[in-house]
């Protein structure tokens, strides 16, 4: 059996100059191949989705490659954590040696996102849920938030702290959509206006273009090219529902299982983790996920945000790119969470670098807390 590692990762946020989905991905792919001293002809495995019906095949054709391994499962926002784990396994099993996991979206410039969501006529969601007049997925997260207000005794000001923290980090990220803007205040989040109560405009992630790519190679190759190695030490996936009415628990999600299982897989404890990158489609997504991971009681998590626990120089830095709330949200964020973790682990940043991290825990979710994947990364010293 071979061993495999993540070597490089790059993001790409062409906000000012709209590009096609293929071009966004190709730009990041070429950037990391170039860094590694490789070319597109060296790629023999590729995972992507959301490009077209034949997503991986279409992207491969654009790159001019004929991969021996490909993957295009659709799991929404968590897809790309699963893809990276599958790519590592594919290299370990010898199906391929140089794998790319890439994603791109031009949803903002192409105006392809609709407030009512994507409705497929033959599905139970269409019959029983979309027909009711929900904003999808916003209203469904709003229902979680309203329930959390009731059970966890939190309020809109508490959730706003999550958006305030995200903006702080994004202001240090020159690729962020909100880079160059100013810090947010809790009042500004509240004053941004309710869209689906209790969630305000600034409780919601951005709708932007963007994408990126991750390079995964056989360790024999990365050693011969003297590439950095980051290991996937732990991974766990759980799909719980797609119709909202079937969600098993509205506050504690599948993240409870996947975070625990991924740490068991990594033979680590939460205390061993140096940073968290968790999906932030909405402010409530972060609070619910951190509570599900078992970090603390929800009210204490809010207090920790206020006290700087999750800041770049805090105990456990969180969403250091500014996340979907303030950096970039091109429809699915999972790959970008991973790219940020890889670059932090590689000490690649100047102004938002956290202090010499060796481990990261990434959690991504898709749908409305429907799919879950947690990954634990560790850099090889």
């Amino acid at each position, binding site marked *: 059996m071979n061993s495999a590692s993540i070597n490089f990762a790059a993001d790409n946020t062409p906000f000012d100059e709209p590009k096609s989905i293929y071009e966004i991905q190709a730009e990041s792919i070429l950037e990391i191949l170039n860094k590694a001293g490789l070319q597109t002809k060296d790629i023999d495995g590729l995972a992507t989705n959301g490009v077209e019906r034949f997503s991986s095949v279409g992207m491969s054709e654009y790159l001019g490659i004929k991969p021996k391994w490909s993957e295009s499962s659709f799991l929404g926002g968590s897809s790309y954590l699963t893809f990276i784990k599958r790519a590592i396994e594919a290299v370990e099993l010898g199906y391929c040696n140089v794998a790319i996991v890439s994603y791109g979206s031009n949803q903002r410039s192409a105006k392809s996102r609709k407030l009512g969501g994507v409705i497929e006529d033959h599905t139970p969601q269409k*019959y029983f849920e979309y027909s009711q*007049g*929900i904003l999808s997925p916003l209203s469904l997260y709003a229902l979680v938030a309203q*329930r959390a207000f009731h059970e966890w005794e939190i309020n809109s000001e508490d959730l706003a702290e999550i958006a305030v923290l995200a903006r702080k980090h994004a202001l240090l990220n020159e690729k962020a959509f909100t880079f160059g803007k100013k810090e947010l205040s809790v009042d500004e989040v509240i004053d941004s206006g309710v869209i689906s109560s209790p969630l305000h405009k600034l409780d919601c992630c951005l709708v932007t273009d963007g994408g990126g790519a991750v390079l995964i190679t056989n360790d024999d190759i990365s050693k011969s090219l003297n590439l950095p190695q980051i290991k996937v030490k732990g991974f766990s996936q759980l799909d719980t529902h797609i*119709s*909202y*009415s079937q969600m098993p628990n509205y506050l504690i999600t599948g993240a409870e299982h996947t975070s625990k299982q991924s740490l068991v897989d990594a033979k680590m404890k939460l205390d061993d983790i140096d940073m968290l990158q968790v999906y932030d489609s909405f402010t409530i997504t972060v609070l619910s996920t951190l509570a599900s991971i078992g970090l603390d009681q929800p009210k204490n998590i809010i207090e920790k945000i206020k006290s700087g626990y999750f800041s770049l120089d805090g105990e456990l830095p969180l969403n250091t790119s500014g996340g979907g709330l303030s950096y970039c949200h091109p429809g699915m964020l999972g790959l970008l969470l991973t790219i940020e973790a890889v670059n932090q682990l590689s000490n690649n940043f100047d102004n938002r670098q956290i202090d010499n991290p060796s481990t990261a825990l990434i959690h991504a979710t898709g749908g409305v807390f429907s799919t879950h994947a947690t990954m634990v990364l560790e850099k090889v010293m």
Partner: protein
Amino acid sequence: MDIWEDWLELVKKGNFTIQICIDCNKSQFYPRSFCQFCNGKNLELVSYKDQAHIYSFTEILRSPNPEKFTPPYFIGLVEIDNAIKVICQLNLNKDEISIGKPVKFKELTNDGIIIFH
């Protein structure tokens, strides 16, 4: 898909029904062709028995489809018989809506909107 069209037609007549499994006595919603718990096929559509209450709610202030929906209106996540959740519209005033409040099925509109009040 017929099972869902049939359900809509039935509920339009005035009774909100859920599937009960005759073999294991568990209930499920939305309707399926088999029992997801015991895999039996002896399912019966019955009106819900005990009570329904608001599990969560949201006020919609921006329309997902201006031709069909005019805000503001309330969406409810209603819990039925402590087992089943349903997304619906709540035909209630703002001050009448709170988590835990008992509600009753009012109607299923021709547009497929489930209304509790």
